């Protein structure tokens, strides 16, 4: 049976089609989910894509977090369903309290768009099993509010528990604390990532194909589950 990976579209989602494409290239069946629909249509995992969700004028992801589909996703994520939030999706996961911390305005105040080098720090999450710890990858990054912040004790706990998934290398593009580009929850099924692996899955359109590993990882996770 084909693995079904849902991709939620919020009003303002921009990278939902790219995320669906990445899911397909990884070998799974992408399922489009609408944010007003509570039903997850029997998907095995969910991607919250990047873009600009409606309601970002309050705080990024603040109003999307209360979309009906999020009630079901929060419930299922707590039961272990893999959820990947990319960029705006990461912000929605923080606003949902599935992940700690928050994303704030870049320290430069500029919108940053660049090919970003990352180091994978945790290869045991549902979304990073196809990488190795210390592996360096390049994927696009594009954000205006991508600066990860949290209390010192939260940051210390994330480090101590190995919950930093990826860190910025060479350049910290937005002033994120401790160069953090992505984190996971304690169970390792929920991952938030500011850069965009779904834009690095094909040689024609991406700087590399090194983003594909996030999408192939979850398939392996689900097959082995």
């Amino acid at each position, binding site marked *: 049976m084909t693995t079904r990976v849902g991709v939620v579209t919020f009003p303002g989602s921009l990278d939902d089609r790219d995320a669906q494409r990445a899911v397909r290239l990884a070998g799974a069946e992408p399922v489009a989910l609408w944010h007003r629909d509570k039903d997850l249509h029997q998907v095995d995992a969910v991607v919250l894509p990047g873009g600009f969700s409606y309601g970002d004028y*309050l*705080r990024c992801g*603040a109003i999307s977090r*209360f979309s009906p589909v999020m009630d079901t996703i929060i419930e299922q994520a707590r039961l272990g369903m893999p959820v990947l939030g990319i960029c705006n999706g990461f912000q929605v996961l*923080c*606003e949902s309290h599935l992940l*700690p*911390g*928050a994303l*704030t*305005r*870049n*320290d*430069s*105040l500029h919108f940053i768009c660049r090919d970003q080098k990352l180091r994978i720090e945790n290869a045991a999450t549902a979304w990073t099993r196809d990488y190795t710890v210390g592996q360096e990858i390049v994927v696009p990054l594009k954000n205006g509010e991508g*600066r990860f*912040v*949290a209390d010192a004790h939260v940051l210390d706990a994330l480090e101590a528990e190995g919950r930093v998934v990826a860190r910025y290398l060479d350049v910290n593009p937005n*002033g994120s604390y401790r160069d953090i580009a992505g984190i996971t929850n304690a169970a390792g099924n929920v991952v938030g990532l500011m850069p965009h692996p779904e834009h690095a899955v094909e040689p024609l359109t991406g700087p590399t194909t090194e983003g594909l590993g996030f999408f192939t990882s979850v398939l392996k996770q689900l097959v082995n589950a």
Partner: protein
Amino acid sequence: MARVVVDVMLKPEILDPQGQAVQRALPRLGFAGIADVRQGKRFELELEGPVDDAALARIREAAETFLANTVIEDFVVRVEEEAK
């Protein structure tokens, strides 16, 4: 109608690059002597009913769950005096 104001500010320990940009511009415009600027949000809520303890408790709950992200922001709820 009664008005309740909710002021939301980034916590002191969170960098406020917008406030800093404003602070740097002030002396250029001739406004000297301002050591720091923090930029926040103000919500003005017009209540349909009276501003009693129950209404204020509901507004505090709204501020805590929705208007502010208490991971990074503090908020203050106050009742605005009615114009005479």
